C-alpha cells in the first residue's frame, strides 16, 4: 500500500507555491514583503487591486480548471479503460465550443458566452449518453465510438462557424478554442466543483480500482457496475463542462497529468484522483504565469504552455518507468 498522505502533502505545497508565484510575478512584480502585507489586509492600493482583483482570482481559476480537467481525465481513463482518454474524448469540448462560438457570432456578452458553452457541453453529454445507450448493450467501446464521432460532428460545425464568421470576431473565437484564462471571471464555481468532485471521488476510489480490472471482475467483487459507470461518466462530464465554461478548452492537462502521476505514484485511484486535482491545478497555474509573461505584454494561449511543459516531463517519466 502506498501511503496516501505524504505525496498529497508535497503536491499541495507545490500548488501553494505555484499560486504564490502567480500572484507575485507579472508586469508589475510584487516583492514578498508587499505580498505579505496585502494578504494581511494592508499594503499599497496598487498592489491590493493587482493581487486581490486580478492575479489571485486568475491564479485560483487556473488552479481549479487544471484540477477539474486532470480529475475528469483520470475518471474518463478508468471509465473507458483506455489510457488515451481525456476529458474531451467524448465530444464535450466540441459541444461547448459550438455553444460559445455561436454566442460570440451573435455578439453576445461574455456571461452569455459562458452560459452557452455550458449548455453546449451538457447537450453534447446528453446526446452521447442517449446514443451510446442505443437499443443494444452498452460497452465502453460503444461509448467511446459514439463520443468520438459526435466530437467530429462538432468539429465540423466549429470549422463552419470560423469560415463564415466576420473577421473581427475571429481572434476572440480562436483564443476561446485554445483556452484562455482571461475569460475566467470568478474562480469560485470551479473551485467548489473541484472540492465536491474530490470529496465524492475519495470514497469511490477503491471501487474504481476494481472497475479498472474489467466489469465482470468488478461485479463479482460487489461493485454495482452500471450505476458506477454512469455516475463516473456524468461526474466527469460535469467537471469538464465547468472547466470549459470557465476558460475555454485547454488541452493536454486532462490527458497527461493523471498519467504522469500513475508513472510515479502507481495506480491507486484513491491517491491518483486527489493528486490529479493538486498536480493539474499546479501545472495550469504555472503554465498561465508563463503564458502571460513570456512575451509580455502579449499573451500566449495557455494550452501552448501546458503542452510545452507537459510533453518533455511526460516523455521523461515514461522513459525511465519500468
Amino acid at each position: 500500500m502506498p501511503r496516501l498522505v505524504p505525496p498529497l502533502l508535497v503536491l499541495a505545497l507545490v500548488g501553494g507555491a505555484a499560486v504564490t508565484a502567480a500572484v507575485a510575478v507579472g508586469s508589475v512584480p510584487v516583492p514578498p514583503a508587499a505580498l505579505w502585507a496585502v494578504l494581511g489586509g494592508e499594503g499599497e492600493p496598487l498592489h491590493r487591486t493587482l493581487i486581490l482583483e486580478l492575479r489571485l482570482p486568475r491564479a485560483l481559476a487556473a488552479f481549479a480548471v487544471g484540477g477539474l480537467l486532470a480529475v475528469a481525465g483520470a475518471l474518463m481513463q478508468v471509465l473507458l479503460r483506455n489510457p488515451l482518454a481525456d476529458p474531451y474524448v467524448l465530444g464535450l469540448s466540441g459541444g461547448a465550443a459550438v455553444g460559445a462560438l455561436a454566442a460570440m457570432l451573435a455578439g453576445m456578452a461574455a456571461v452569455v458566452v459562458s452560459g452557452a458553452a455550458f449548455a453546449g457541453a451538457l447537450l453534447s453529454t446528453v446526446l452521447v449518453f442517449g446514443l451510446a445507450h442505443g437499443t443494444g448493450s452498452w460497452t465502453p467501446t460503444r461509448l467511446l465510438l459514439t463520443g468520438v464521432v459526435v466530437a467530429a460532428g462538432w468539429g465540423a460545425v466549429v470549422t463552419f462557424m470560423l469560415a463564415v464568421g466576420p473577421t473581427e470576431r475571429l481572434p476572440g473565437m480562436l483564443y476561446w478554442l485554445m483556452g484562455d484564462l482571461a475569460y475566467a471571471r470568478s474562480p469560485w464555481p470551479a473551485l467548489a466543483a473541484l472540492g465536491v468532485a474530490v470529496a465524492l471521488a475519495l470514497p469511490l476510489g477503491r471501487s474504481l480500482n476494481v472497475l479498472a480490472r474489467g466489469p465482470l471482475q468488478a461485479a463479482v467483487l460487489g461493485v454495482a457496475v452500471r450505476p458506477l459507470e454512469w455516475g463516473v461518466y456524468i461526474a466527469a462530464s460535469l467537471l469538464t463542462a465547468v472547466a470549459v465554461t470557465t476558460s475555454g478548452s485547454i488541452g493536454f492537462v486532462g490527458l497527461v497529468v493523471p498519467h504522469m502521476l500513475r508513472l510515479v505514484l502507481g495506480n491507486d485511484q484513491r491517491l491518483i484522483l486527489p493528486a490529479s486535482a493538486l498536480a493539474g491545478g499546479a501545472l495550469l497555474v504555472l503554465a498561465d504565469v508563463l503564458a502571460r509573461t513570456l512575451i509580455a505584454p502579449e499573451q500566449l494561449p495557455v494550452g501552448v504552455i501546458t503542452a510545452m511543459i507537459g510533453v518533455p516531463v511526460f516523455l521523461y517519466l515514461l522513459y525511465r518507468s519500468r
Partner: protein
Amino acid sequence: MPTAATSSECTDLAARELVIDVPGRRDGDALSFTVAPGQVWGVLGPNGAGKTTLLHTLAGLRPVRRGEVALAGRPLGRWRRRRIAQRLAVVFQESYDGFPATVLETALIGRHPYLSPWDLETAEDIETARQALRRMELDGLEERLVSTLSGGERQRLAIATALTQAPSIWLADEPTNHLDLRHQVAVMELLRSEARDGRAVFLCLHDVNLAARWCDRILLLDPDGGACWGSTESMLVPAALERLYGQRLEAAQINGAKVFVPVNS
C-alpha cells in the same frame, strides 16, 4: 484453517428450473441442481456448449432465460451485489489488464467486498492476501507488475485473488488453464481442500481426467442445450463422453483411478 478474515459459513448455490441464455440457441434443458457445501462439481462439454455462460449465470453476471439461481435459498436478484461477493468468488478464464498493478495490489482487491468506502486495507487484509499468494507459490513476486507475469503465474494470481476473497462458494472457469502439471494438481488439491472445509466448488473443465480424479459431481453440457448431471462414477463412462465430444475414447485404470485417452477411430 479459517482465520478471522475467512468466512466460514456454509452456503449452497442452487439452479432452479434454470435455462441459460445462449444467444441464437433454442431453450436448452432446464437445470435443477444444488452445489452443496463439501461438493466439487465439474462441468464438461465441447467448445461452445455454454459452460462459461452457465458459470456466469450462476454468478449472477448474466440474465437467465427462465428459472432462477438461488444463493443460500434466496434468489440472486434479491441479494445485494456486495453480499453476494462476500460469499461467492469467480475465477475467470481470462484476466483483464487494465492499468499496471502489482501482484499484491491485485490479490488485495479480493478484500473489496468486506471494506466500507472509507476503509483502507488493514494489516490483516494484507496478511490474508500474502497468505493466499504463498499458497499459490507467488510469494516473492508481490511487487512485480502483473503484466510481467507468465500465463501460469497470472492464473495462479487469479486463484489467489479468489482465495483472498474467502468465499463459501467457488465458481472457477478452467482454473487449470496455462498451468504446468504440478500446479494443475496443486490447484485441484486446493479446491478439494476448500470443499473439505465446507465450501462448495463449481468448475468448468476441459480435462476429463482432472474431473474424474477431483470432482464428485459431473454435469455434461452438449452444444444443443442438452444436459445431464449426477455422480462422477455414473456420468464419466466412455459411451457418454464419446457422444459428448464426438471423439473415440479408451478408458483404463491406473493405480485404481479411471483415466480416459482419446484414440483415432
